[in-house]
C-alpha cells in the first residue's frame, strides 16, 4: 500500500511497506528515537518514538503507515513523556556525561537535549554491572547500556556473528557476550564489525579513539540548531522594595569548584551584577555561614559526606530558592562514579595504597565527617527549585538566570545554555 499520512498536520507520502517513522524520516520529519536504526529490523523497545496514531499511542517504528493515518508527534504531551523516558534511562544506568568518552557522539544525550531535559527528577538506581576491558581495541561498559539491542541486531544481521545477547529479565537483565569465557577478547569481534560501531551510547566504544575528535566538534555538538525552549518551574515570590538587592549564597559540596570558576567567567559583568545582587555565604567573599534569610542559593557538587549534608540543609533552610548547579549537584556527577565501589576499598585506595603515603592508616578522628555509602544528587536530600545543568554551566547561563530572577522573570534559558556535558 502507498498513500499519504498526516503527521503534525503535514501531509507526507509513504512507500509500500514503510513504517510511520520511515515515512517521516524520508520526508525530513524528525521523530525522536533510540533503538530504531534504518539499517535494522525495528525493535520497538525504547518507546522514544511513541506517537499518537489515530488517537492511540504506539511505537512509530513498528507501526506500518496506512493511507489517511493521522499521526501526532511533536506535541508537548508526547515530548514530555519522551523526556521522562530519557530521564528514566539516565537514572537506570550510570550516565554521567561529563565523564563519558562518548559525550557529543551520544544519541541518548542528544535526544535528551532536544527534548529539553534539564534535570533528573527520579532517584538514581545505582548499578555496578561488569565492565569488560579484555579486548585490545573495544571496551564494553555495561553500566551505560540502554538495552536498545542494536549491537545484538548488528552482530546477527550484518556481521553474521551473533555475538551479543540480552539475558535475564527485570532486575537482572544484562548484555552477554557469546564466547567461551564470556569475554569480548575471545568473541572474535573486530573494530570493523557493525556491532562495534552501532552503539548509540558509550557502552561499546573503541579504545584509544575517544578523544581523536575534541568535545565541541563531535557529531551532535555540530548540530545544536534544533532548539527547544526550556520551560521552568514557577518562582517563589520575592517581595522586594525598590532598590533592595537580591541576596545570593553559593557553595560547593562534592564538586571541583569548576561551576564557581565558570560563574566568575561572567568577567566584568560581575560589577553590573553587584548593583542588584548582594553576596551572602560564598567562597567568593569567604563568608562562612548563611544569613537567616537568603533569596537564592546556588549549590555546586553532590552529597558525599556528612558535612555536605549539614551545609546543604543549612542552605535549604536559609534560601528561598535553591538552585542545583552543574552535573554533580544534579546527578552526583564525577564523584558518583565511585558508587559501585565499597567504602572500605575507597578508603584503602586513598589512605593506604595511594602512592607516596607515609604512616598509612584510615583516619578515625571523630571530628572528621563520615563518608556516605553513595554520592547522591542534592535533590535526594533537600527540595530543589531549579536545575542549572552543565559541566560547568556556561557563564552566560549564570548571568541569565540571575538576571531573570532579579528582574522577577521565571528563568528561561535557551537551549544552547543548557547542556549537561
Amino acid at each position, binding site marked *: 500500500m502507498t498513500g499519504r499520512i498526516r503527521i503534525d498536520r503535514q501531509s507526507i507520502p509513504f512507500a509500500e511497506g514503510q513504517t510511520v517513522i520511515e515515512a517521516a524520516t524520508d520526508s525530513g520529519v524528525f521523530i525522536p528515537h533510540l533503538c530504531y536504526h534504518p539499517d535494522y529490523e*525495528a525493535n*520497538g*523497545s*525504547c*518507546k*522514544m518514538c*511513541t506517537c499518537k496514531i489515530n488517537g492511540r*499511542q504506539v*511505537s512509530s517504528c*513498528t507501526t506500518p503507515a496506512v493511507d489517511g493515518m493521522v499521526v501526532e508527534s511533536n506535541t508537548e504531551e508526547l515530548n514530555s*513523556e519522551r523526556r*521522562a*523516558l530519557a530521564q*528514566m*534511562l539516565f*537514572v*537506570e544506568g550510570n550516565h554521567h556525561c561529563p565523564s563519558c568518552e562518548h559525550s557529543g557522539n551520544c544519541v541518548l544525550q542528544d535526544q535528551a537535549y532536544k527534548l529539553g531535559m534539564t534535570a533528573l*527528577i*527520579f*532517584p538514581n*538506581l545505582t548499578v555496578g554491572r561488569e565492565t569488560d576491558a579484555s579486548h585490545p581495541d573495544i571496551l564494553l561498559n555495561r553500566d551505560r547500556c*540502554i*538495552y536498545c539491542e542494536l549491537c545484538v541486531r548488528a552482530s546477527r544481521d550484518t556481521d553474521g556473528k*551473533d555475538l*551479543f*545477547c*540480552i*539475558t*535475564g*529479565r*527485570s*532486575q*537482572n*537483565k*544484562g548484555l*552477554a*557476550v*557469546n564466547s567461551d569465557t*564470556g569475554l569480548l577478547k575471545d568473541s572474535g569481534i573486530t573494530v570493523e564489525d557493525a556491532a562495534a560501531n552501532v552503539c548509540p551510547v558509550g557502552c561499546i566504544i573503541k579504545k584509544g579513539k575517544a578523544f581523536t575528535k575534541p568535545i565541541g566538534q563531535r557529531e551532535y555538538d555540530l548540530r545544536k540548531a534544533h532548539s527547544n525552549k526550556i520551560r521552568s518551574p514557577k518562582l517563589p515570590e520575592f517581595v522586594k522594595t525598590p532598590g533592595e538587592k537580591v541576596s545570593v549564597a553559593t557553595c560547593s559540596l562534592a564538586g571541583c569548584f569548576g561551576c564557581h570558576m565558570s560563574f566568575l567567567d561572567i568577567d566584568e559583568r560581575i560589577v553590573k551584577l553587584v548593583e542588584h545582587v548582594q553576596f551572602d555565604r560564598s567562597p567568593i567573599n569567604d563568608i562562612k555561614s548563611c544569613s537567616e534569610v537568603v533569596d537564592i542559593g546556588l549549590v555546586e557538587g553532590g552529597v558525599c559526606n*556528612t558535612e555536605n*549534608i549539614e551545609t546543604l540543609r543549612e542552605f535549604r533552610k536559609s534560601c528561598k530558592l535553591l538552585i542545583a548547579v552543574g552535573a554533580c549537584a544534579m546527578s552526583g556527577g564525577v564523584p558518583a562514579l565511585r558508587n559501585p565501589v*565499597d*567504602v*572500605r576499598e575507597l*578508603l584503602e585506595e586513598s589512605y593506604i595504597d595511594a602512592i607516596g603515603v607515609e604512616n598509612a*592508616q*584510615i583516619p*578515625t578522628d571523630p571530628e572528621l565527617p*563520615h*563518608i*556516605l*555509602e*553513595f554520592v*547522591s544528587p542534592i535533590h*535526594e*536530600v*533537600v*527540595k530543589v527549585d531549579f536545575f542549572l545543568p552543565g559541566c560547568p554551566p556556561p557563564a552566560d547561563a549564570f548571568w541569565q538566570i540571575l538576571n531573570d530572577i532579579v528582574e522577577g522573570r521565571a528563568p528561561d534559558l535557551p537551549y544552547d545554555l543548557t547542556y549537561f556535558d
Partner: protein
Amino acid sequence: MAEFDRDPHSVMQILRRLQLQQNVIHQSDIEVLADGLNLPRTKIKAIIDFYSFLHDTPRGRYDIYFSDSITDHMLGSRDSARTLCEALGVEPGVPDPGGLATVDFTSCTGLCERGPAVLVNGIAIDRVDNERAIAMADLVRGLVPLEDWPLEWFVINDAIRRKGPLLQQTVQRGSALERAIKIGPDQVIADLGLSGLRGCGGAGFPTYRKWDICRKAGGDERFVICNADEGEPGTFKDRALLNTEGCNVIEGMTVCGITIGASEGFIYLRHEYEFLRERLEKRLRRRRQMGQLGRNILGHHGINFDIEIVMGAGSYVCGEESALIESLEGKRGIPRIRPPYPVTHGYRSRPTVVNNVETFAYAAGIVAEGPGFFKEDESHPGWKLLSISGDCESPGIYELPVGTKVGEALEACGAQDVQAVQVGGPGGILLSADETHRELSFDDSNTGGSFIVFDRSRDLLDVALNFTKFFAHESCGFCTPCRVGTKLMVRMADKIADGHGARLDIEQMRRLNHLMTKASHCGLGQSAAVPILTTYEKFPDAFSRRMEDVEYKPAFDVEAAIERSRQIVAEEAGIR
C-alpha cells in the same frame, strides 16, 4: 537431548528438567547443550536468567519456595517462612553451606485459598503453617526423600463452592467431539458465535472470531495452544479445572483443532502446576486409547490431532499469549510486537489459536450441547469461574452468571466486614465496600478469575506495595517504561511505606503511571502503577497513616548512609 530430537526449541524443557534433577544447571551442561542444539551459549544463559526457577548457581537439595502472593501473606506465609529459615539456619534465597536447603520466595503459586503454599523441588504443598514448617525442617534435616513426606501434604483438593453448567459436569466425554465432526467447522463456529463465549483469561476476545480468523488464515499448518500459565495472583480456577475437568479442556482443544484444521496442540502448563502434569498425561493417554486423540479421531480417516504438555519455568508475563508462544519456542518470554497477532502468525509463525483453560472447557460444552449451554438469553449472557480468596469464610471456586454483582459474590463466599475487593488480580481494579453494586462482566469489573477480599483489619498500602513489587519482579524488562518504571514505582512506594512520603511523590507516581499506561509494550507495564495509585484515590487513609501532608520529604537516611563508614572507623580504631 535425543529425547527432544535435538530441537533448539526444546532448550527450556531440557533446562527445566536438569534443574529439577540437579538443583542447578552447570556450566558444563550449558556447553553440552550449546553444541548439541547448535545455539550460542549466551542464548542458553539468557533463558536461565529469565525464568525464576532456572539457576546456574546451586540451590539446596531441597529447593523450597514460599508463594509471595498477598493471599499467602494474609494466611501467614512470612511467619512460616521465617520459622522454616530459623529451623534450618538459612537466609532466604541462600542455600546453607552444606547445600541442604534453599528457602526462597516466588510469585503466586496458585494455591491462594489454601495458603501458605510452598513448592518443594517443584511440587506444591499447601497450608504450611508454623507447625508444618517445623515438621518440614525435621524432614529436610533427616534427609527424608520427598516421596516419603506425609502424603496428605500433597493432596490439593479443590474447594468447589458453586456449580454452574461447567462444574456440574453434565457433558458426556466425547460428545463435543462427535458433534463437532457431525456438524462441521462452520456450524461449530456459528454455535460459538451464538453462545457469546469470549476469552476467559481476561481479554475477552470473541472465541468464534479467533477460531474463524485462524481457520481462514493462509498456510496449511496451524496450532492450538491452551494457556494454562495461570499466574495472575489470586487466580486458581484453571488449576481446579485441570484437576477435575481436564477432559473437558482436552476435548475443547481437540474440537478447536478439528475446526481450524490443526493437528498439533500444546498445553502450556505453569511450572507451579507440576503436580497436575501426571494426571493430565494420564488423561491424554486414555483419550488416545479411546480414539478421541491422535490419528483418525473417532475412526474418521484424516482427522488427526494430538496434544503435548509443555512446562513453564517461572514467568508471569508468559501468560500473555505472544510471550507464551516465545516461551513455547524455547526463548525468553518477551511479548511480541503486534500486529501481526498469533491468530495469523503464532507458534513457529503459523496461525495459532491461544485460549485459556476455561475457554476451551466452555467451548466443549457449547459444541456438545449447543449455545444454550453457555447463554440462555440476553439477560443470562453466560458464566464465569471465579477464584475467591482472602478474608472470607468459604474461599474457593464459584461458577457464577456473568453480570453477578460484586455484593452477591461477597455474600456467597461469606465475607464479613469488607474493606475492599481486588477484582482481576493486581492488574485489575480495586473496589471499595461502597461499590458492591458493580457487576462482574467485561463491561464493568472485568476479571480473568481473581477475586481477593480484604476486611477492615488489612492495611491496603501493604497490599498495594505487594502488587507493585510483584510487577517489578515479573517485568520482562524489554521496554523502557516498564523496566525502569516498575523499579521506580517500588522505590517511591517503599518511600511512602517507610514514612518518607510527600505530595511530590504522589505527583511523580501519577506522571509515571500516565507514561507507563500509555507507552508500555504490554499489559504488565500498562497496569503496574495502577494498584498503588488506585489505593491512594480510594483509600487515602491507608496513605495518610504513614504520610505527613508536606510537599517534599527526602527518603535520604543519613544513619543508613554512614553505617558502613562507622563500621570501618570502629574496626580501624579497634585495630590501633
